[in-house]
């Protein structure tokens, strides 16, 4: 089965305003194996864009390329019209612009409050840390549960709460783009619901790039969907169009059987 990636041009609507994140022809190769090939991606100024696909498709790798945790890629990626590889201030400044939430919540061995403000730099911003922390915790839907115990250890929180804490921590440095790598995969249904709700609200202001295994979640969160398999983007479309009328055979196969044979 031929796997020439057909780039479906998404229908022209007001929703897409390219210029926020633009990925052109991204390649990533590691130890002789091609991880990402020919990746083209556009993110709108706000809203949720999901990346779905089977394991090993390269979804997480793509996220790590964007915030330069992975550095040996070739291609052209711009965020707000600035090239990622020549970001003023280097990688550290870039990463303060982009938040990344990992699948497994990883809190630092300190209090809840200190976790939230961990990334805040600069003396003058540290003075307003209290306000920033409260704001971030509210947006992450965690404020009510922890406002009485900000100084208690973060490790005492439940897994779902820890994940929301990680989201708050990322939000505290006010990123212009938030990337999430299967954020609810290891959580209970209630935490999943809380986080999805929080994400939908966040997406009203900044673009979110979400990797998920959960097809129902991708449908619920709406926005745009990119289907990846084997390092390539197979199909991309507005979510409800993608899920109801998939164009490619591989997409149909994946939606049906949750696996795809792209070779």
């Amino acid at each position, binding site marked *: 089965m031929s796997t020439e990636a057909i780039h479906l041009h998404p229908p022209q609507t007001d929703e897409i305003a390219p210029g926020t994140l633009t990925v052109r022809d991204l390649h990533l190769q590691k130890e002789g194996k091609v991880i990402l090939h020919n990746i083209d991606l556009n993110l709108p100024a706000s809203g949720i864009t999901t990346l779905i696909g089977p394991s090993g498709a390269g979804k997480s790798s793509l996220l790590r390329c964007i915030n330069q945790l992975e550095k040996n890629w070739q291609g052209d990626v711009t965020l707000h019209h600035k090239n990622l590889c020549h970001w003023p201030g280097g990688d550290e400044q870039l990463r*303060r612009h982009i938040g990344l939430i*990992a699948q497994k919540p*990883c809190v630092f061995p300190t209090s809840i409050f200190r976790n939230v403000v961990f*990334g805040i730099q600069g003396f003058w911003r540290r003075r307003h840390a209290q306000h920033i922390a409260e704001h971030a915790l509210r947006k992450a839907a965690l404020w009510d549960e922890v406002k009485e115990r900000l100084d208690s250890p973060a490790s005492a929180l439940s897994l779902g709460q820890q994940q929301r804490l*990680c989201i708050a921590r*990322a939000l505290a440095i006010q990123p212009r783009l938030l990337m999430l790598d299967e954020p609810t995969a290891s959580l209970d249904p209630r935490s999943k619901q809380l986080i999805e709700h929080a994400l939908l609200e966040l997406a009203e202001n900044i673009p979110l790039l979400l990797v998920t295994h959960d097809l129902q979640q991708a449908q619920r969160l709406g926005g745009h969907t990119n289907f990846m398999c084997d390092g390539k983007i197979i199909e991309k479309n507005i979510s409800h169009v993608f899920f109801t009328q998939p164009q490619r055979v591989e997409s149909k196969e994946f939606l049906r059987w949750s696996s795809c044979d792209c070779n």
Partner: protein
Amino acid sequence: MLRLWLNTATLLCAASLLLIVTFLLYASSPIFAAQGLNFVVEQEWYPYEALFGLLPVLVGSLLSVGVAIALALPLGVAAALFNLEIIPKAAQSWLRLLMELMAGIPSVVYGLLGLWLLVPLLESQLNLLTGRTLFTAALLLAIMALPTIMVLSEDALRRVSREQRENAVTLGLNWWQQVCRILLPQAWPGIRLATLLALGRALGETVAVMLVVGSIDRIPEPFYNLLLPAQTFTSRIGREMGEAEIDSLHWAALMSSGLALMLISLIVVAPSLFWRSK
């Protein structure tokens, strides 16, 4: 049969601790009988006149060890960070090997190096009457402590999880911030233990110190002038072990120095026992 062996062995271990304390107490009892506890704060050590002050060696031991650890800790941790972070992976194991070899060099060889390299060096560079000073001893002790601190600190730093590190990177922290806010705080328990271990060893170090400290049983004048010869517990015991007449008061005083040294070492190690059990 098995039980007998196991029980006996364990009892022997436990007994040896008691035996040592008991015998030292027994052997030093004459001086307690003769002078009470006064000799602990007595400043003079002049066996021929029955003056058995512990103060000079107390000051000498504490000062030399204190300076040694104050020097070795930052340098050792810096070296550990250096090996972990700054040099390429290929060179890391070689450096580690070098350090482990250094940690195994017998102290008498360090004493030789100290006596024939360090002492003349200090004499010429600092224009001293004699290069055998408390500072020389402290320097030598620092050199001996460096490999231990470096190796154990490196182990502690390596144990900090990659995840923690990566989460800090994701937030945009630069290298120095990662070191100060993630690596060092989380490796601190291990580094603390390493320091205590090095401290204990430095306190108990005998031959190397004996050769370079000058062996003058006087508190230096002023007490913080490290560039004068002085004396430590270990050096005194080492030097006079062969000279003290058995069962004399001198002998008992020597034993009491040993007892005091042992007590101090046990006190130094006690916190680590407490930490280990947490």
